[in-house]
């Protein structure tokens, strides 16, 4: 359950994977996320915001794949730790440092 990608190489967006990559998603996918939230605020109808939602999902999944390709080992360690400790950041500091050293938050 703590896999980052499935057999075909596509990233699996489970909670541990998303929480582990959350800081990267926050920085790199900020425009798409903000657009989606603005669309939702204007009109909460899901049918009206489908395209912006697709953009946000595409950005996040692409980012996950990119992170996995750039630093596979630290990311797998971090995701495994998150899965074991149910997304507690404070219990996974070591793996978080290793991950952020390998794939810096820019």
């Amino acid at each position: 359950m703590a896999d980052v990608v499935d057999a075909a190489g596509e990233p699996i967006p489970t909670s541990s994977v998303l929480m582990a990559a959350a800081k990267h998603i926050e920085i790199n996918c900020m425009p798409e996320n903000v657009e989606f939230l603005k669309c939702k605020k204007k009109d909460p109808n899901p049918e009206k915001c489908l395209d912006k939602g697709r953009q946000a999902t595409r950005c996040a999944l692409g980012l996950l794949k990119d992170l996995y390709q750039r630093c596979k080992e630290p990311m797998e360690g971090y995701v495994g730790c998150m899965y074991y400790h149910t997304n507690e950041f404070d219990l996974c500091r070591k793996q978080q440092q290793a991950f952020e050293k390998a794939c810096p938050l820019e």
Partner: protein
Amino acid sequence: MTESVIRNKPGMASVKDMPILQDGPPPGGFAPVRYARRIPNKGPSAMAIFLAAFGAFSYGMYQVGKGNKIRRALKEEKYAARRAILPVLQAEEDERFVKEWKKYLEYEAEVMKDVPGWKVGENVYNSGRWMPPATGELRPEVW
């Protein structure tokens, strides 16, 4: 009989002349016993005790404040992570909802096709805003 054997004085004429055998103080009396209070008046004053307690209390509250700051930072980290992944999760749920909703609208059209003047599916409310379906029938496995 035993008394006269114990307290015998040779040459006494009657039992009334027996010497008196009493338990009494030693000759010269007992040593004097002190029974007055002697509580010493040294040690910390009231102000000193108060300041020590106040100092311990304020040091403790300072540590509490520092700990609260750290805990708040941890919570902020968690909330920021949740805020960052919220659009991904909401978009997934929207896709699933739209699929289910279309299926539901088709079902409703088929059920109500013989009722005159029935507009399929849309808006039981009059405010103009979109409201999520309230009956919970779209996800019976959850409810």
